[in-house]
C-alpha cells in the first residue's frame, strides 16, 4: 500500500531565493512527524506546498494514490481531506466557534445543518470547548482559538492534519492546552505533520523528526536518536541552541 502522504523532490523559490531545494519524505497512516529547523528554512512553505496554498515550482506530492500536484486533480477535493492549522489560527471572525467548525461540513460536504451542528459540537467537546460554542473568536484566548481551529480541521474528518507552528503565536501559559489536544490526537492515531519547536511534544509523540535547514532535509530520524546522537554536526548544534533556549533538561 502507498504511504498516506508522499512528497518527492519538491522545489520552491520566491524570486531568487530558493526556499525549498529538493525535499522528499513520506508519512504513513497514523504517523506523526515533526519538522524542526531554523526560521526561514522553508518549513512553513513545505506545509503550504503540500495542500497547494503555495504552488511548488517542481516536484510531486501524493495523498494516497492521488497526485495532488497534477494539473487535473481537483484541489478543493484534496484540501477537504487535509486539515490545516495555522500559526495565527485564522478563525473566521464573523462566525462563532460552532459556526467556524460546522461551516466546512456544510459548505464543502453539503451536510445538513443540524447534522453538522451535532458533529461540530462533538469536535468542540473533543478539544474541551463545548461550553464556548457560542463565543466569537475575538472573545476567546489564543489557546482557545487554536483549539477551535483544530476542531475545525477535525470536523472535516481529514486523513491528515498539517500544523504550521501551532503554538508559536501563543503566550507560554497557553501552549500547554494546545499541545495536550495535539498529543491526544496523535495517540488516537491521527496522521500529523507538525512544524514546531516544541521539543517536549516532539519527543513524546513524534515517530520521526525531520531537521530542515536552507531548504533541504539535513537529517531525519526517531526523536530518541536525534536527541542522543545526531549524525550531523549541524543538527547537534541546532538542538543544543533550542534546548538552551527552552531550558529543556530531561533526557
Amino acid at each position, binding site marked *: 500500500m502507498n504511504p498516506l502522504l508522499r512528497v518527492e523532490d519538491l522545489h520552491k523559490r520566491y524570486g531568487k531565493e530558493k526556499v525549498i531545494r529538493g525535499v522528499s519524505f513520506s508519512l504513513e497512516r497514523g504517523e506523526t512527524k515533526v519538522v524542526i529547523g531554523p526560521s526561514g528554512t522553508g518549513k512553513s512553505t513545505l506545509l503550504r506546498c503540500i495542500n497547494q496554498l503555495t504552488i511548488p515550482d517542481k516536484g510531486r506530492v501524493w495523498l494516497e494514490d492521488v497526485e495532488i500536484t497534477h494539473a487535473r486533480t481537483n484541489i478543493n477535493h484534496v484540501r477537504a*481531506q487535509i486539515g*490545516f492549522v*495555522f500559526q495565527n489560527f485564522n478563525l*473566521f471572525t464573523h462566525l462563532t466557534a460552532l459556526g467556524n467548525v460546522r461551516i466546512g461540513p456544510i459548505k464543502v460536504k453539503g451536510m445538513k445543518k443540524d447534522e453538522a451542528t451535532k458533529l461540530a459540537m462533538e469536535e468542540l467537546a473533543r478539544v474541551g470547548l463545548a461550553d464556548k460554542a457560542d463565543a466569537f473568536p475575538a472573545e476567546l484566548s489564543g489557546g482557545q482559538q487554536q483549539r477551535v481551529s483544530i476542531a475545525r480541521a477535525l470536523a472535516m474528518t481529514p486523513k491528515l492534519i498539517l500544523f504550521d507552528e501551532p503554538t508559536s503565536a501563543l503566550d507560554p501559559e497557553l501552549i500547554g492546552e494546545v499541545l495536550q489536544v495535539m498529543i491526544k490526537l496523535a495517540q488516537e492515531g491521527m496522521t500529523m505533520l507538525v512544524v514546531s519547536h516544541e521539543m517536549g511534544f516532539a519527543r513524546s509523540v513524534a515517530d520521526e523528526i525531520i531537521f530542515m535547514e536552507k531548504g533541504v532535509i539535513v537529517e531525519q530520524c526517531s526523536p530518541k536518536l536525534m536527541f542522543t546522537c545526531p549524525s550531523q554536526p549541524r543538527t547537534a548544534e541546532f538542538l543544543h541552541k533550542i534546548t538552551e533556549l527552552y531550558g529543556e533538561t530531561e533526557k
Partner: protein
Amino acid sequence: MTFRWDWLPKLAEGLLLTVEITAVCVAIGIVLGTLLAAGRVYGRRWLRLLCGVYIEFFRGTPLLVQVFIVYFGLPSIGVTLSAFTSAALALGLNTAAYQAEYLRGALQAVGSGQLQAARSVGMPLRQAVWSVVFPQAFRIVLPAWSNELIQMLKYSSIVFTITLYDLMGMGKKLAAKHFTYLEVFLVVALFYLAVVLILTQLLNLLERRTRLPGLGSDVEAPAKYRLWTPLRRPGGRGR
C-alpha cells in the same frame, strides 16, 4: 418672507421622486459595485484592469457630465431613455464606482489569512469569498457605504437639469413661480436634512445590529447618552 402651505404637498411629491431615484441608483450601485470590487480584487489581470478603467472613468469625470451623456448623448446612437431611467442609471453607474472602491478597501482589510483558511477547508475561491470574506467586508464597509448613500441622496439634486421634478426641481419651479427663492430653498434644504437625519439613524441601527465582536467599530457611547448621532463625514468630496 412669505410662506405658503400649499408648497408642502408639491415638495413632498418632489421628495418622493428624489427618494425613488436614490433607491434605484444605490441598488444598481450595490450590485454593480460588488461585482466590480470582486473583479478588481480577485479577477484575472484583464478583469482587474477592466474594472479599474471603469472605476477611474466614473470617479474621474463629473457626475453632471455622466448624466448628460446618458440623457442627451445616448439618443444620438439610438438609445433613448426616459429622464427617470437616465437619472437612475447615470447615478447608479457613478455610485457603483465609489462603492466598488470602498468595498475593495474592505475586502483587502479582511486579510489573506481568512481566505487561506477557507481554501484550506476545501472551499472553491468563489465560495470562500462569498461565505467568508464578504460577510466580514460588508460589516467593515458599512460606515463608508452609509456615507455614500447619503451623498447620493444629495447629489441626486442635479437631475433637475434633465427635466425631472425631484425635490430640487420642484423647489426651483415653485421659487420661480412665486419669486420666493430664499423661502422655498430653505424649506427644500430642511426636507433634505430631515431625510438625511432619518437615514443616518436607520444606518446606525443597521450598523449596531450587524456588529460582531472583533468586527466593525467596537467603541461607542452607551445608547442612553445618544439621542442622535452626528453625521460622519470622513473627508467630504465633490464630483
